[in-house]
């Protein structure tokens, strides 16, 4: 079976002033369709950098990223935008919702970029938000939402254009343990019921272990350990 995502010897080197930061030093792995993979590791181990490269927000110094047999590292900027729009959906530790827009508008904005027709956007966005348990929060602005609600809106936005891969960068980093569990459960549910492939970066190895098929451990830009927790049935 062809992996949905495959990275080969991925390197990323930043220059921070005069210093050279080697964020990734040869990362190679692949992920099957429908898998839930977590990446754990200390701060500065290169987890977020890896996610940004796969998300098309940043470009690799060397190496390859194949998604659906398309080569991400050779893409032009416009193709990268299309990749972010259609193929992946991203969620962040700090939610990154647009504060001046309501929950619904945050989701419809993503649909506008995705080319969803104007009159279909609101019902579609409303349906997604409702499914994520935000029926009463549709017209609230991010400032009026709790952390858990805000992250669920962010997930709804990430799902707006029906991506194949959901990239989650420390999605529970700003949440208390109870809400964290809810978000992890939600991702788990999406993975099992909607067969969305999930790649999650997290500190919380314990809860990751309850939902992931595999867990990669990253240290100094290299995968030092791969733990198989469950398997795709």
């Amino acid at each position: 079976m062809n992996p949905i995502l495959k990275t080969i010897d991925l390197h990323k080197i930043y220059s921070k002033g005069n210093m050279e930061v080697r964020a990734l030093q040869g990362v190679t792995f692949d992920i099957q369709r429908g898998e839930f993979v977590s990446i754990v590791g200390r701060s500065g181990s290169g987890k977020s950098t890896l996610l940004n490269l796969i998300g098309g927000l940043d470009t690799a110094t060397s190496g390859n990223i194949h998604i659906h047999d398309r080569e991400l590292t050779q893409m032009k900027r416009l193709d990268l935008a299309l990749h972010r729009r259609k193929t992946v959906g991203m969620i962040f530790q700090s939610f990154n919702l647009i504060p001046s827009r309501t929950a619904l508008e945050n989701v419809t904005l993503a649909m506008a970029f995705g080319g969803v027709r104007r009159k279909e956007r609101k019902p579609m966005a409303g349906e997604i938000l409702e499914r994520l348990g935000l029926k009463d929060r549709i017209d609230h602005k991010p400032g009026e939402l709790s952390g858990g609600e805000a992250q669920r809106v962010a997930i709804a936005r990430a799902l707006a254009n029906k991506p194949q891969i959901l990239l989650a960068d420390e999605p529970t980093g700003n949440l208390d343990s109870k809400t964290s569990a809810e978000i992890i459960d939600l991702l788990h549910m999406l993975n099992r019921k909607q067969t969305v492939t999930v790649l999650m970066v997290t500190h919380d190895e314990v809860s990751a272990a309850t939902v992931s098929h595999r867990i990669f451990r990253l240290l100094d830009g290299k995968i030092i350990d791969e733990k198989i927790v469950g398997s795709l049935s």
Partner: protein
Amino acid sequence: MRLDDKLQLGLANLWRTKLRTVLTTLGVMIGIGALVSMVSFGTGMQKNITQTFKENDLFTSMQVTPRKIDFEQAMAGNVESIVESLQEDTPPLNEGALKTIGDIRGVELAFPEIRFPVKIKFGEYETQTTLRALPLGMGHYKPYNNLDYGQFFPSDTASSVIIHPRILRELKIILTSDKEEQKLSIEDSLRGVRTLSADAIMGKPIEIITSVVDFNAIMKNPMRQLRAGTNTPTREASTTLTIIGIQKEGSAFDGGTRFDPGIVVPMQTVNRIPRLGFSSIWSLLNTSGSTDTYASVTVRVKSITETDSVQAKIERMGFGVFSIADQLEELKTGFIIFDTALGAVGAIALIVAALGIINTMVMSILERTREIGVMKAIGGSENEIKTIFFIEAGSIGLIGGIFGLGLGWVVTLIANVVANYIVARQGVPHVDFFYIPIWLILGALAFSILVSLLAGLYPAIRAARVDPVKALRHD
């Protein structure tokens, strides 16, 4: 993402920072207002002058002189070339030539130009002006086909005069309309100004006083006349004619100078008025010495389209031709330069406004870096983000432009009232100093949007290049 989505996003962004948007738009508005009011002054002047030309049928009129005078050479002070041209053998501009010119196809009217300075006396007041003789045919032409009161001459020999209202003012007469009694200001009353109705003037006698050479005086004591400082050997002669018409008060650009004819008499009647040997300024150039030649002949053609061919034919006869139509192209170029200079002053204000737009947009991008990062993360392309910012800048330009047009219009209205108030005290009739043609409206709007888009260029590129990784990094 469709254009209407971008439009909505851009406008929503402007709406969110209302005060800043309003202030920036005000800048553009003032810039466009300045531009429009400045340029409309130039176009107003142009309109007034060309309209006066048209009203007086000057485009179908030309002046024929015995020989071609190179005005450019004369202006440059090139005496030699003028003397040379005077020495050339040229055909006489006499009765025969006048008839030949009159027979050219397209020529409606050809008559010798006779005008000379006179003193006129009406009642107890007198003033000085220029008298001009016109043939009966001129009654079909502006402005003589549309007199304020009375009729054009019944014949070429009638003892009639048509008078310009400017002369009436100089004679301290204010015409009253039939409907309302005009109140005199105290100032006017003290100066001895009277109000008279047109009926009180029409059909009344007017005295034309001219200077003639007093041969008797010369004969009596020829030597005395040569001494400096003594009286010239002239005496005054008086001819009495009847006022049969009053011309319309034209625009301020019409007959504004004292050299323009204040009174007009029929072509044959003028022979009854005794005068000095030369009849007009053109006579000074008449060096042939013969008495039966004309210094200058006025030609009227049927339509503007025939001006060129008629002019060429007369020039082939060996005469010089001067026509306003010739000068029009040069005049137009002059006005383009004038308008451009005025526009440049207005454009400075717009450039300042453009800097305001750049400032506002850059500020806005700094504040919205994270938002731009989010838009990129959810799939916004560089072009889409660029377009959103262009729409913001362009909207400021469009709205500022529309309100600027309004501002310019109001400014010209006020300036026109003030300017007319000032010139009215000098007896100049109402003038519209400003004119806003449709091309100025559309041009100002287009220019406003263009300048705004140019101002938005750098901010838009900067917004498109926001690095999403940096923008989304959690603080």
